[in-house]
């Protein structure tokens, strides 16, 4: 363990923190934007509470376009936008922009699927009881879909850990960046292995937490 000098420990800790910030911030943005987007897609879709094809189709196309663009290309393609928002195109802050964008599109679809799983009968019962559309969204759709929404966030978080390593490789910092710089460029396979181990444990932790929450909230 001679390679694990205090300096290297600090580097690992900083890198882990940067990964946490990238994943956490972009996930928070993705949830905040993705959930309203998913609700809009669900409500305006065919058989939704208020079908509006003229809104639903373009919105769906936009989300699909963002989803089908490979992350590495998306990251490069939106550099001007990233500069505009973050003031720079490198560093952890800048990496959050493309990560949040990709995660938003990804989550919007996962959320939409979770919302679609809500028993149509429960929605119909709420309509029969005189609930407004807004009440149906806030009191039926979202609460009933909550376990599915949490499962979707878990999936998104795990994907974001992977994407953040990619973003890190082109100047974003984080564990992925550290692993590449030391493990690959300076021939220190121990560092690479440690980074991978931390990522595995981290992802496993996220998944277990998500699964536990889903189980707790389901009542099925």
């Amino acid at each position, binding site marked *: 363990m001679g390679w694990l000098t205090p300096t290297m420990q600090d580097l690992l800790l900083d890198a882990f923190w940067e990964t946490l910030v990238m994943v956490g911030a972009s996930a928070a943005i993705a949830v905040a934007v993705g959930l309203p987007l998913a609700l809009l897609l669900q409500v305006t879709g065919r058989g939704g509470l208020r079908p509006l094809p003229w809104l639903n189709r373009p919105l769906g196309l936009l989300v699909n376009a963002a989803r089908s663009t490979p992350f590495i290309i998306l990251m490069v393609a939106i550099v001007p936008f990233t500069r505009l928002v973050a003031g720079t195109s490198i560093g952890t802050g800048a990496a959050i922009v493309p990560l949040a964008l990709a995660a938003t599109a990804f989550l919007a679809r996962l959320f939409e699927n979770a919302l679609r799983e809500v028993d149509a009968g*429960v929605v119909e019962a709420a*309509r*029969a009881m005189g*609930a407004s559309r807004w009440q149906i969204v806030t009191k039926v759709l979202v609460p009933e879909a909550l376990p599915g929404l949490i499962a979707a966030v878990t999936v998104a978080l795990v994907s974001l850990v992977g994407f953040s390593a990619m973003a890190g490789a082109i100047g974003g910092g984080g564990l992925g960046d550290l692993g590449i710089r030391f493990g690959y460029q300076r021939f220190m396979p121990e560092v690479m292995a440690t980074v991978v181990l931390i990522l595995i444990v981290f992802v496993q932790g996220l998944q277990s937490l998500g699964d536990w929450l889903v189980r707790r909230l389901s*009542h099925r």
Partner: protein
Amino acid sequence: MHPPSHHPADGPAIRLAGLRKRFAAGGAPALDDVSLELRTGEVFGIVGRSGAGKSTLIRTVNLLERPDAGSVTVMGRDLLALDEAGLRAARRGIGMVFQHFNLHHRRTVAENIGFPLEVAGMPAAARRARVAELLPLVGLEAKRDAFPAQLSGGQKQRVGIARALASAPSLLLCDEATSALDPETTAEILALIRSLRDRLDLTVLLITHEMGVVKAICDRVAVMEAGRIIEQGRVFEVFTRPAQPTTRRFVAEVIGHGVPPGTLARLPPAPPGQQRRLAQVLFLGPHSTRPVISEASRDFGLDINIVSGRVDEIAGEPFGVMALAVCGAAAAIDAAFGWMRGLGLVIEEDVAWAG
């Protein structure tokens, strides 16, 4: 939050007139000129095969389904004339119970029952008090904090019923409310609906594909086929004097003249010059005590075998049903049947005996 009160003198509780609905252009209509009136306080059943249009019809009563044509008047109010907010308010005065219960999986029993009150904007404390009144009404005091997944089908439907009654509606719609339940639980839930009707002065519209449900709790019944109402009337009348073939088939499920095939095969052949005929005889009301069969046998010179028989009750009125094997001269049998019909008995010879 209560709907404007409606008095029996104001007219029917529900008045549907000339309803038409077609889901696919050019397809068969789901509703084809349906008109119906429910009297305040009655339990009205609509029976029909799957796909007859029953659900579409009951869903027009609270406009979950908008008809293409016709009018929907509930408690004297024209629902089609209401705006969104008005319709939502009107719906709060109409309770609805569903085949698959449609409970919120992540809400407790108490939270499910309180949902319509929450939607109506009732404060939490008042809601709790109202839910506490409703729980004993459906016998679920012990389950107030349970989740739907922890309940049996019958208990889930009790929650559905309590929820439908939370806003103190005067009208209850039941869409196949017992079709997902076993026979014993079905009887329990039907008894509950009937007793709630009596205690809370409800008017109940229920649809079902089971004639047994109609027999158990309805006052009047309409039979639906291919989007039309083909027959309607008091349950006892419809059961004992069905006019349409479809109605007869439905009634047969419950009146049950099932005679084992073996029994029919064992009947001896008629002697030469005589006939042996099978007939189903319904004894209604006052005649059920008169010794009609021995009189017929004696006065018309017939041999009468009782193949099967039982006494039953529809909507509280007793009736007897028998399968008779009658042996004698054709003219004597005809005369005997004519005499029995004159007494008010219903005699049918062209029934599907095996069953």
